[in-house]
């Protein structure tokens, strides 16, 4: 299945080992610009590893990863400008607890992009408004609820103006009451045409937002399809079993 438009992310035969254990087994995946891909699969199937290889938090040992056509070479200096086009949101938020919400957002702008403080704060406030928590800007992350923290994390990633957003189970650490506020922000983001790769088990989100659902198991992509096809007519028994367990 080849998506239309120019490729934002290309994985070509990507393999990754932890010691002797192969976590990714020659993955091939292309995500087009503006496409929204939801990745699902049982725990330990390599979803996180894949998404972390895309922004090089983990280095793959075999295969090629291209971001907007430019291959990652493994040299931090050379890859940095390419990787700056990706933003990442983690399951455990990973906000910086010693900085206020606003500082969390302006921090990389002033240190990595060398932007003047006032300009950075302007951008940060705009994104905090976008995730609907501008009034929390002066608080510290640990004074906020989980849902609020995750929305700050999304705003923080957006501040760096990435063209691709990666989400690794953004709602798995949240209480049920807070999942919706985070998903709403993500749905809105999808509306802006952002390229998104989202690891999640929120099948409602997959149905309404995704262009494509990718199902992984044991370090491989088992099958991928448009959501309506994926949910109504999965081709593999493994997929059916998985869906029957989570739906």
């Amino acid at each position, binding site marked *: 299945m080849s998506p239309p438009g120019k490729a934002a992310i290309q994985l070509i035969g990507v393999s990754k080992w932890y010691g002797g254990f192969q976590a990714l087994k020659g993955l091939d995946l292309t995500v087009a610009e503006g496409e929204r891909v939801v990745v699902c699969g049982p725990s330990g199937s390599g979803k996180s590893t894949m998404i972390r290889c895309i922004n090089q938090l983990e280095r793959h040992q075999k295969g090629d990863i291209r971001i907007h056509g430019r291959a990652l070479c493994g040299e931090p200096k050379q890859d*940095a400008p390419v990787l700056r086009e990706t933003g990442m949101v983690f399951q455990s938020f*990973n906000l910086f607890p*010693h900085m206020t919400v606003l500082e969390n957002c302006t*921090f990389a702008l002033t*240190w990595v992009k060398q932007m003047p403080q006032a300009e950075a704060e302007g951008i940060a406030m705009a994104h905090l408004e976008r995730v609907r928590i501008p009034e929390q800007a002066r608080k510290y992350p*640990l004074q906020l609820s989980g849902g609020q923290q995750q929305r700050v994390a999304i705003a923080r990633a957006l501040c*760096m103006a990435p063209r691709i957003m990666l989400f690794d189970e953004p709602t798995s650490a949240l209480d049920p009451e807070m999942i919706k506020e985070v998903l709403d922000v993500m749905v809105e983001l999808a509306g802006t045409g952002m390229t998104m790769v989202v690891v999640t088990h929120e099948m409602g989100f997959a149905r309404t937002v995704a262009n494509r659902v990718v199902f992984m198991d044991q370090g491989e992509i088992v099958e991928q399809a448009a959501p309506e096809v994926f949910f109504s007519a999965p081709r593999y028994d493994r997929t059916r079993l998985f869906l029957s367990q989570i739906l």
Partner: protein
Amino acid sequence: MSDAPLVFTPRPADPPPPSTIGVVGWMRANLFSSLPNAILTFLGGYIFYVVVTTIIDWALVKAVWEAENRRQCLDLVGRSGACWPGVVEWIPNLIYGLYPKDQVWRINIGFLILLAWAVPLWLPRVKSKVAIGLSLVLLYPLLASYFFHGGAQGVVWTALIALGGAAFLWVWLTTLAEMRFGLGFGALVARLAGAADDERARRIGWGALAALYVLALLVVSQLRFVEVPTRVWGGLFLTLVISGIGIAFSLPAGVLLALGRRSQMPLIRVFCVTFIELFRSVPLITILFMFNTMLPLFLPAGVEVNRLLRAIVAVCLFASAYMAEIVRGGLQAIPKGQYEAAAAMGLGFWQSTSLIILPQALRIMIPSIVGNFIGLFKDTTLVSIIGLFDLLSMSRAVGEDTRWLGLFIEPFFFITMIYFVFCFLMSQYSLNLERRLGEGQRR
């Protein structure tokens, strides 16, 4: 059955039962919760009372405050009261050692400069606190050496001392500028000079710094202090010099060693591990002896490293090794997600380490770091063994004075108080710092 749902109204909260709160509640819960507990409370209270009254009796009530020599004290109260005149007479020596009396003002000025240098760190609206703190650690010692040691300096030393002087001027000019105008010293001068663009402003800022340096150079090269060799340094002054340098050196060195120990580069890692384990597995006193007796063997004949310097180097290396392990513990407590979030936002190793990881790690390490500083401060008493006259050795000298022969307990008591005050202040400050830095960041 009606369709309208029941309305849930939460109950108002009750106050806690009176016997569980306030002084009475606290005493009940903590001092008299059971019979054994009550007995222990009374026993403890009794022991405390006896100890305190005995000490007060000896040190204040029965003490002698005026006497010519120890004989007179003994004739008056025997051994049941303290004999303070000997200690009072020796106070200048306990504090300054054998430093020439007419030069002691230099030490005082030196410490006043230290205080003045540190004051901006506590002032509001001062933004350059990091730079001021760094300059304090790196450049104040240069200026201090000029005051404390004095004597003729070569060209290099003069240049370095002037750097210290210029830094001090800069600290206060920047502090005033930031408190008054919200601009650093360089930026303020550029503003006043009407700099058109950033590039010019930067150049004018650097020009202003250069002017400060030239000014400092002029003063330093004109003013010359008599040399006071480190041989005669002693007392509290010497203790503060050794522990101050040890403290200032060990924290940054410990951070570097700890980072080195976690480095991916094998050479660096092996060096750091060896250094840390070597110095941590040998008592400080052995290291002091080694440096004192063996260092000269390794140096070419004729090169003389003074005794104080040898002690300082030994203390610094020893303290760094301990500090490195404390810092490593702190680094380990920071979740991996913090590194990952920093990396995902495009921060490099040094940026994420210094801006994300260390500030968090140092905060949780404050109690152990200050504990280490306190230990270091007290450990400097060991330098008396290699013939330096620190506070402890000075206090022993009192009892060897012919007029105060045998007066040992009183000077010991006195320096114990000095050590206590310093260590207590350090530990209180650390608690205070912890509380302030932890604001809003409790999990």
